[in-house]
């Protein structure tokens, strides 16, 4: 991940609850964006996917070696749901360069919603609670959620009560 320009889209509220959710309006039709999401060539150019089968049960494979990630990762998964020009949901599991494998899959959903002349694209990455022990053992993992979310809420309440 790089520290680039300020993100012009939205970090959605659910991100605070330890599911990553970001959205952005893009000046293109859902049909145009689907030419990226719905094709192997498009996903190669966008996500560096080596394999993308845009059908239910289809396979997904990403090799991060060409990205800015310090560590090489292989990301793999399957298409769980796909609705043309509207939605794709896929499982997302990572194999680290040193052989560590996420013990379970997370889930990534990309949804498109047509607005006046633009398309709202929303990316939601969820399921990190399944990786709790893995995160403890090897913390170069993406995300976390598990027990911290209720803790944080209660801690905030406690801090609020003290203030």
């Amino acid at each position, binding site marked *: *991940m*790089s*520290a*680039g*320009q300020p*993100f*012009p*889209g939205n*970090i959605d509220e659910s*991100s605070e609850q*330890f599911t*990553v959710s*970001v*959205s*952005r309006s*893009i*000046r*293109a039709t859902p049909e*145009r*964006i689907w*030419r*990226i999401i719905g094709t192997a060539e*498009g996903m190669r*150019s*966008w*996500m560096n996917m080596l394999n993308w089968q845009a059908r239910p049960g289809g396979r997904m494979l990403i090799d991060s070696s060409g990205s800015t990630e310090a560590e090489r990762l292989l990301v793999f998964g399957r298409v769980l749901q796909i609705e043309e020009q509207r939605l794709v949901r896929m499982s997302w599991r990572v194999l680290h360069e040193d052989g560590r494998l996420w013990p379970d899959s997370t889930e990534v959903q990309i949804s498109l919603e047509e607005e006046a002349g633009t398309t709202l*694209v929303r*990316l939601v*990455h969820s399921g990190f609670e399944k990786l*709790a*022990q893995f*995160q*403890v053992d090897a*913390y*170069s993992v*993406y*995300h*976390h959620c598990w*027990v*911290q979310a209720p*803790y*944080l809420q*209660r*801690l*905030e309440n*406690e*801090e609020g009560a003290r203030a």
Partner: protein
Amino acid sequence: MSMQTDNTYRALADGTRREILDCLLEHGPMRATDLAAHFPEISRPAVSRHVRILREAGLLEERTRGRERWQHVRPLPLQEVQQWVRRYERFWSDKLEDLARLVEDD
């Protein structure tokens, strides 16, 4: 990820230590002896050991009142964990930017 966050994860990996945090959040600051009374199935030295690990992870802070030492929950390390989450928001935000560049430049 910093050593402090590493310690935070390791401290939270243990179910008893999460219960100790729960207990302190629910009932407020306590002495180690009071805490031990909430965990009758665990020996007092074991509770003290868990408290020490939580303190070393920065999740608890010990404050002295007279001759008594009270354990307080300290939220700072979890805020650090939250910052880590935000890195991944950045990853997906960057991907959205890449997508916009791909389709808007036509």
